[in-house]
């Protein structure tokens, strides 16, 4: 081997400036944390905090044993909750699909006008929590399941719309080009070139959102939108802790089940 003389042995991943900035950044983060901690502890009433373990143990004690007979009163609200989640997801999907096609750069009919409108719909839907949607809707259309369904649907538009339009933008352009080259019409290009490519994403997103919606619809009753949340609120208000624990366990079981179903479905289609 020949002697290497004119190549440097020094190489560093970051420049000196980059290293300093990095350290500065971490320092600022630590400072921020300390500052936040001070503000947080300033307003805390410590007597309550010291008391917390005793309180938790007290409530925990009242929760056990769960009053299992209460389950019989829960099946109908649980069914309502599941329906709320499912119908809400369905409504969300129906509204989200056109929005997604309008928002995707490669399918939007007008990038100048319709695309920003579609993106705004998505952002607006996503920026408001479904609990807030439900609060508004209970005030508008009155308490009950319908308000819950509409709240779930409105919140789902943004989630499904965003993920779906990203899937549309990631489609393989050459497959679409090939369909265009056959002389296919716009609608045919959509149904042969694009739809088959986004089908797995579509089902995956829908089932994932349904799974999330079951969890969300379980608490919507807290603001009067029906379902099992209504029972939870009633039990909390009457300090019936042994009923609260039954409800929480039931919600847990439902969520585990729905998560299992959604995992299976997603596994099957991908």
């Amino acid at each position, binding site marked *: 081997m020949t002697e290497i003389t004119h190549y440097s042995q020094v190489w560093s991943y970051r420049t000196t400036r980059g290293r300093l900035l990095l350290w500065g950044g971490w320092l600022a983060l630590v400072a921020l944390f300390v500052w936040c901690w001070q503000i947080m502890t300033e307003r805390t009433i410590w007597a309550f905090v010291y008391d917390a373990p005793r309180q938790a143990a007290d409530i925990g004690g009242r929760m056990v044993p769960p009053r299992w007979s209460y389950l019989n009163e829960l099946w109908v609200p649980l069914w309502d909750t599941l329906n709320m989640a499912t119908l809400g997801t369905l409504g969300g999907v129906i509204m989200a699909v056109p929005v997604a096609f309008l928002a995707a750069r490669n399918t939007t009919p007008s990038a100048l006008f319709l695309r920003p409108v579609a993106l705004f719909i998505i952002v607006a839907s996503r920026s408001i929590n479904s609990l807030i949607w439900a609060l508004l809707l209970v005030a508008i259309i009155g308490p009950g399941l319908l308000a819950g369904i509409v709240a779930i649907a409105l919140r789902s538009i943004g989630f499904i719309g965003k993920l779906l339009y990203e899937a549309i933008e990631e489609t*393989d352009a*050459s*497959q679409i*080009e*090939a*369909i*265009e*080259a*056959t*002389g*296919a*019409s716009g*609608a*045919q290009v959509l*149904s*042969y*070139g694009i739809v*088959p*490519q986004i*089908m*797995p994403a579509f089902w995956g997103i829908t089932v994932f959102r349904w799974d999330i919606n079951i969890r969300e619809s379980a608490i919507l009753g807290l603001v009067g939108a029906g379902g099992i949340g209504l029972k939870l609120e009633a039990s909390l208000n009457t300090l019936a802790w042994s009923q609260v624990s039954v409800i929480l366990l039931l919600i847990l079981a439902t969520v585990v089940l729905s998560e299992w179903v959604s995992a299976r479905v997603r596994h099957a289609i991908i």
Partner: protein
Amino acid sequence: MLFLEGLTKTYKTGDAALRDVSLTVPKGQIMGLIGPSGAGKSTLIRCINRLVEPSGGKVLLGDVDLVGLGKADLRRQRRRIGMIFQEYALVERLTVMENVLSGRLGYVPFWRSFLRKYPPADIQRAYQLLDRVGLMEQADKRADALSGGQRQRVGIARALAQDPELLLVDEPTASLDPKTSRQIMRLLTEICAERGLPAIVNIHDVPLAQQFMQRIVGLRAGRVVFDGTPEQLTHEALTAIYGAEDWNEMRRGDEEQTRAEADARDRMAALAR
């Protein structure tokens, strides 16, 4: 019969991909288009069916000028032009049959294509084409379950399902091994000969072009710099297209590789016996 007259394409970035290209492709002729990467081969064939919008010139297929047609008229004219792609460009998640039938999209109304209710004549023709390319057994398999060579056969069947008057073929063998490449090129040339179908074939592989093409056009920086028979494609001609390189040496290398492949095949056959 296809006439290109003064075809020009300048991209928005200011790159001139095609400069004043004029060509005539008579009925039944298979024309190979060679040239270095970026010479405008892809742009040229995409300007013909206007997947890329030409900036100027004429594209006459029969007596229709495709440049300047409205959307609906363009769709009707695209049915007359079959296209075969480099990476097959099949709709991967549809079945082989759906892919072949998609060649009929320009002829059937939307509801028929959406419900997969194609006219019986179209279905019969699709089966006939699948049989011709040797994929009768695979009709109901999904396209992504096939090998590269099989996929390209589906691509050929889809293009033929259009009953085209012209085939545009973009690097049909770039993703295939040498043996499959030759099989696909043979199939293409046979089919064109059977139907008297003219074809423009973009091709990287010069020996393959010389073996299968009746006429070769060399493109360099968007201009036609060679137009002749494969025999006329001399050292000087190749240098004019690709720039200086020892072409005879490369051809010898190619022959050597062919000999080596044949030798390896014989030995494998001997082992198998």
